[in-house]
């Protein structure tokens, strides 16, 4: 019940280690040296804002009918019976999307019942079925990657309140996509219960899953 920004706390935990490493010279990353002073209290972490918002009252999840990993039509409604986490991102995203999906994967290891994870691309020009499949398979069998036409993706995103746009870039990786980074929690009956912001810890995600019966 104590939402916290994981990155900030992790940073604070690392601070003494980083300081120790500086003092100790080229300490390897796995140094076991322990600082003499305890880590800074979490209360000094910046931005202790809520990392999620509940839908109160819960409301029916918007429709999500796109193309699944096997290239066939996929309907979110087919996952009734399991809690589902829905996240919109793209596979050329090296930072925010893998961080979120890794946090979700870690959260799934903390809960008892199967949870499905639906990763919807907001970059259908590059993310075809094959690209989505490779991408989500790295996270485990409960993950599904969805793609579609540009119009289908835009309609789905609008229904879920997801914003995105292309950012042209000089990067060798090509353009980037700006996008909202919430994860939506849909319960086993198809009701939208929470959305979790970027940086929600695996523990917080797991707690919310348990609350909805995960």
């Amino acid at each position: 019940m104590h939402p916290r920004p994981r990155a900030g706390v992790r940073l604070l935990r690392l601070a003494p280690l980083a300081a120790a490493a500086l003092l100790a010279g080229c300490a390897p990353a796995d140094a076991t040296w322990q600082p003499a002073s305890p880590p800074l209290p979490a209360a000094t972490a910046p931005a202790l804002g809520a990392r999620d918002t509940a839908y109160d009252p819960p409301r029916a999840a918007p429709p999500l009918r796109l193309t699944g990993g096997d290239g066939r039509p996929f309907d979110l409604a087919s996952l009734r019976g399991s809690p589902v986490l829905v996240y919109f991102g793209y596979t050329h995203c090296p930072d925010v999307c893998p961080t979120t999906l890794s946090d979700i994967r870690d959260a799934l290891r903390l809960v008892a019942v199967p949870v499905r994870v639906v990763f919807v691309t907001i970059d259908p020009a590059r993310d075809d079925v094959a690209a989505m499949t490779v991408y989500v398979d790295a996270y485990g069998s409960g993950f599904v990657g969805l793609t579609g036409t540009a119009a289908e993706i835009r309609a789905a995103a609008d229904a879920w309140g997801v914003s995105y746009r292309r950012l042209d870039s000089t990067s060798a990786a090509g353009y980037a996509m700006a996008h909202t980074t919430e994860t939506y929690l849909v319960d086993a009956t198809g009701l939208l219960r929470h959305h979790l912001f970027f940086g929600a810890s695996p523990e917080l995600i797991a707690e919310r899953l348990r609350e909805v019966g995960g």
Partner: protein
Amino acid sequence: MPARRFPARPFPLLAGAVLAAVLVAGCSSAGTASSITVTGAWARASSAMAAAGAAYMTIANSGSEADALIGASSPVAATVEVHETVAMGAPSPSDGMGMGSPMPSASAGTDGGMMGMQPVARLEIPAGGTVELKPGGYHIMLIGLTQELKAGTTIQITLTFEKAGPITVTADVRES
């Protein structure tokens, strides 16, 4: 002969100071003169087929002059760039696929807004300062992976600094 005891105290202090100086001086993996130290380097485990991987670390500058990270390379990627994830303000669902407006500078408040990413040609490491590369902020982008980044292994990344020159760091590969 009370005076004889006098030198006994300063000596360990001096020895300690010398030892500390040697340790600090020996810090840079590039050699002797650099005031840049890189710690806690890690890369996220990633399939070789992934479009890009990411690595994170802490860069400290113990010198009295600012330095800057101006490039990077690695045997595991065709191209290595420094990128920054930035908050882009309130969502606007009708943005469409337009080219978008110039990105605002980095800011922590991302709740409910969009996050985007942009290359950083020059990342200043202030004199006496520390810059964290971490998820949701600055990161090393490994583009065109030549191999799987497998958890439990390590990779080499060479960072090029304006003043300190090239510094090669070893990054642990892990899942999160």
